């Protein structure tokens, strides 16, 4: 501790800018990790909080995915002796239309029985409503809101609230206001409660509920209750505690979480290089100091502990700053992430508050410190190995020894060989990841050698361009590879990440566009919600002939999409007339014969799987698929595998007749509409709106609207990962500033001589800028090359472990071309302050500098 105060603190004070930049590397990594993760957690916790609050005393919930449960199931549940209370629920979100209020979560319940499960704690005299539920039931426009919502919008009992229903915009009357807290705090207070039978009508549920909430009889355990209900209902229903919904949502978030985690850790990894770089330089610059300490009796362990202690303090400061910045970042990101999840998965979100997980925050703090110490370990070990006599001699300590270079090359070759071996045996998941890690390790090992060779190659052109400035710039890199290599490595890694992400984005976009071109070919789409992914509103089956008989329409394909649990994951069941689909859509076949899969699926004898689901679940032609249904379960073979990007966890296509039979659900989410030849889409839309729009809430979308929506959503999704890429580049820029600051400090005398013998300020600036540009150029060459490899592995990871989607390898040339001016510009910008420091420092001191 005393050494930290006596030795380290003066050094930090003397090199304050560098110390700040060093800690900034870790701060950024931690900030990104904390920000992204906290935002995701906040969305998840907000969802869980809403689930918990509206679950009340319910111990179990019975559902059948998005298909819902028929009314008669309620009676069977209530008849079970293990059940003390069973209450049906419909849950959906609606736009309130009130300025700044966004969505309201509507919980529709049967007031006659629901109070046994949920506490309705009313303000003032509103108790009367519930004391006589029949009053509530008799008025189907009744709505209970929360005190918070009422206060925010100046509402009171008797006020009118309007929102869209399947029957168009309808006014509801506030007949009760819940006290703040408890259930009333669900969905950020934007909660509305209405009668379930009114909700069946206005939200198009037919005679079905979304789920049944259950309270168990005294002494009945959750396990016993679940088993009893399974016996009473047969297979095909999901019976689980309310927390199960959170788990389902979590599995939907998994892909996004994985992408975020990989990029966050990558950034922290890059931050580690900044720390390594700074400490490696500090050790070389402080050799004399180390020599004196050693001569005075400091042990190797004390020297090592000194540097590790410094790194721990730097890590702690950086991590603390990162925590603060990350939480601020999370505040602005939480709402955005929630909306994105809602748009993609159709699960209503109202995450506004950032929820803190103290264990995670402490973990992130510790991670920052540990990463910092790991990064400083090698420099600390080098410091400990310094011999006093050797340390007090002057020498070219920044030079990499030939032996060191050779050892690195051998290690890199070994990593490449092992990586290739892993690739060859890549079917086994850990081996594939090991291959990826080994390849990254090989790149890092080769970075110093390659940057040295590239610097040598740059010497000629730069000398021709600017004889003195060019030579000085490149020679600085050649003579002190230790100073530059970590920055180049950090830049290489971050650019490789950009290329990897850019390539994935490009490949995803191209693949999805190709799929959109072939699959989304109807002229019009009729949906019940603006958000195509949402299934909160549904059309009744009676609407099918109404649509079909319109003169402009040649054919319609009613579609019902329902998320169901398949092998423990919420996958999408797409129920559609398979004969019509086969006739109308030219699908991209991955496995199977197109005619046969169309014929068998249309006959209800088989299902067709999306390629990503087949990949993730290792399913192929002829394999049996078991889907839980209210009738006990559906077992059908796979007749074909097609390319489909409609759902990230995968889709199962089955004929609508089979779905209706198995799920007793004939509602429709979406109509795919084909117009008669010669009918303009706008005319078709006009006819639909005029014919049906006055009676029902509906959105008629043109083909291009849907294409734009899907591609826009794809861009939005990919946009989230771009944030991390920007930060990764920022971390690399910090590295360049750091390196240049040190380079100028190292070369003070050299630059002083240059000025003494007639170098003008512009020429000195030129030398520094050229050095920065050379670092940028070398980083670009290595990063863009490494990116080609990273892209390959990222596509493999996506196909194998994340989305199951095979994406074409397309090197993102556009991204690479964009990066060149960005990085060179950033390098030059990074050089401004160091260059000014170089030209403004005292010439006399520079010439006397040792």
């Amino acid at each position, binding site marked *: 501790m005393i050494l930290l105060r006596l030795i380290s603190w003066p050094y930090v004070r003397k090199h304050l800018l560098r110390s700040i930049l060093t800690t900034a590397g870790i701060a950024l990594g931690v900030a990104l990790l904390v920000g992204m993760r906290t935002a995701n957690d906040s969305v998840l916790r907000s969802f869980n909080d809403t689930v918990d609050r509206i679950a009340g005393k319910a111990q179990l919930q019975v559902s059948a995915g998005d298909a819902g449960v028929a009314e008669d199931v309620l009676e069977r549940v209530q008849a079970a002796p293990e059940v003390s209370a069973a209450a049906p629920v419909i849950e959906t979100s609606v736009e309130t239309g009130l300025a700044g209020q966004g969505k309201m979560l509507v919980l529709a319940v049967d007031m006659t029985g629901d109070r046994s499960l949920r506490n309705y704690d009313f303000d003032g005299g509103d108790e009367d409503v519930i004391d006589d539920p029949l009053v509530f039931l008799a008025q189907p426009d009744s709505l209970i809101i929360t005190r918070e919502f009422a206060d925010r919008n100046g509402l009171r009992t008797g006020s009118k609230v309007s929102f869209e229903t399947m029957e168009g915009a309808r006014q509801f009357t506030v007949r009760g206001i819940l006290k703040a807290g408890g259930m009333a705090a669900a969905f950020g207070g934007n909660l509305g409660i209405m009668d379930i039978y009114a909700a069946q009508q206005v939200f198009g549920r037919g005679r079905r509920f979304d789920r049944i909430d259950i309270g168990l009889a005294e002494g009945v355990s959750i396990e016993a209750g679940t088993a009893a209900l399974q016996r009473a209902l047969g297979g095909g229903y999901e019976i689980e505690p309310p927390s199960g919904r959170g788990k389902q949502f979590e599995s939907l978030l998994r892909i996004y979480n994985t992408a975020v985690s990989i990029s966050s850790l990558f950034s922290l990894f890059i931050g580690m290089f900044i720390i390594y770089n700074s400490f490696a330089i500090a050790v070389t610059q402080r050799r004399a100091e180390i020599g004196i300490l050693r001569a005075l009796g400091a042990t190797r362990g004390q020297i090592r502990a000194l540097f590790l202690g410094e790194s721990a303090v730097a890590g702690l400061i950086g991590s603390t700053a990162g925590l603060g910045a990350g939480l601020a970042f999370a505040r602005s990101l939480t709402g955005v992430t929630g909306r994105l999840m809602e748009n993609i998965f159709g699960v209503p979100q109202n995450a506004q508050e950032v929820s803190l997980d103290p264990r995670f925050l402490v973990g992130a703090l510790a991670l920052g410190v540990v990463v910092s110490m790991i990064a400083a370990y090698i420099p600390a070990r080098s410091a400990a190995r310094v011999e006093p006599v050797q340390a007090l001699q002057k020498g070219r300590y920044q030079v990499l020894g030939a032996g060191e270079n050779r050892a690195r090359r051998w290690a890199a070759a070994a990593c490449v060989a092992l990586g290739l071996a892993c690739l060859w045996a890549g079917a086994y998941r850990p081996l594939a990841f090991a291959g990826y890690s080994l390849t990254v390790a090989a790149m890092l090992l080769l970075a110093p050698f390659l940057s040295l060779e590239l610097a040598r190659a740059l010497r000629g052109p730069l000398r021709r361009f600017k*004889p003195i400035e060019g030579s000085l710039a490149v020679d600085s890199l050649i003579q002190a590879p230790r100073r530059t290599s970590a920055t180049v490595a950090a830049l290489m890694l971050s650019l490789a990440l950009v290329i990897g992400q850019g390539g994935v984005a490009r490949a995803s976009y191209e693949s999805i566009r190709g799929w959109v071109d072939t699959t989304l070919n109807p002229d019009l789409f009729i949906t019940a919600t603006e958000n195509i992914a949402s299934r909160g509103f549904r059309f009744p089956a009676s609407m099918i002939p109404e649509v079909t008989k319109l003169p402009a329409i040649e054919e319609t394909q009613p579609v019902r999409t329902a998320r169901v649990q398949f092998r423990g994951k919420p996958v999408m069941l797409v129920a559609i007339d398979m004969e019509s689909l086969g006739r109308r859509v030219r699908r991209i076949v991955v496995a199977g014969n197109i005619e046969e899969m169309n014929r068998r699926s249309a006959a209800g004898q088989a299902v067709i799987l999306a390629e990503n689901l087949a990949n993730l679940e290792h399913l192929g032609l002829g394999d049996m698929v078991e889907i839980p249904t209210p009738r006990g379960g559906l077992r059908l073979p796979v007749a074909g595998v097609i390319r489909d990007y409609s759902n990230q966890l995968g889709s199962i296509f089955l004929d609508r007749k089979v779905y209706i039979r198995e799920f007793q659900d004939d509602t429709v989410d979406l109509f795919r509409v084909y117009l008669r030849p010669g009918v303009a889409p706008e005319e078709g839309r006009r006819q639909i709106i005029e014919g049906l729009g006055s009676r029902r809430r509906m959105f008629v979308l043109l083909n291009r609207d849907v294409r734009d929506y899907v591609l826009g959503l794809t861009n939005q999704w990919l946009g989230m990962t771009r944030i991390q890429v920007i930060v990764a580049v920022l971390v690399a820029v910090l590295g360049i500033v750091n390196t240049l600051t040190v380079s100028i400090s190292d070369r003070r005398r050299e630059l*002083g001589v240059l000025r*003494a*013998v007639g170098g*003008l*300020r512009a020429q000195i600036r030129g030398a520094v800028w050229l050095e920065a540009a050379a670092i940028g150029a070398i980083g670009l060459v290595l990063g863009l090359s490494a990116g080609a490899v990273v892209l390959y592995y990222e596509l493999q990871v996506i196909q194998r472990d994340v989305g199951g989607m095979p994406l074409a390898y397309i090197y993102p040339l556009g991204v690479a071309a964009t990066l060149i001016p960005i990085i060179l510009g950033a390098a030059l910008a990074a050089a401004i302050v160091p260059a000014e420091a170089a030209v403004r420092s005292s010439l006399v001191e520079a010439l006397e500098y040792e």
Partner: protein
Amino acid sequence: MIRLNGVSKQFDGKRKVVALDSVDLDVARGELVSIVGPSGSGKSTLLNLIGGLDRPSSGKIEIDGRDVASLSDDDLTRLRRDKIGFIFQFFNLLPSLTCVENVALPLHLKGLPRKEIESRARDLLELVQLGTRMDHLPDELSGGERQRVAIARALAFNPPILLADEPTGNLDTHTGAEILRLIHDLHDRLGATVLIVTHDSGVAQSCPRTVTLRDARIAGDARR
């Protein structure tokens, strides 16, 4: 050629240090002057001020009739480049450049044509008897040879003023004597005004004029 009038230099730190105190000095064109004095007497400060490496706290310095204080940083740099050659105790060669590149450095900085630079740098190295070491790096040379390269570089523009700060201070006696002979020889042949800061009484006595500094003031000015 060089005129100092009431020149003072003060360094402002925790404690103020007066490095030069009201110094007046005239050096005529073509003179060879040694500056001596104990450590901390202000010798190097005086040389730095004359060479335009630093600016005085007060007083006036004229070089070849131009007031140094009125010059901008870049104009001062041009004055240094064109009129003053520096020879440092620690040579201050750039380790990454060869001998010929080091000598060519100021010529490149002025932007002369490449052919002219190459030919001039080689001529200068021949002048200091290093014609066989043109493409060697400084690390590959002895101390004396390095100082010769530094002298060749100082002569790049045939400057009318040559300032040498302990030019033999980092060399053994024999090599130091050689370098001193070279400086005298160049002075005779080129007619430059030469100022040598030194601790070495032999070096001082070899010069026709010796200025002695003590406690930041001129304590003696002897001509032989």
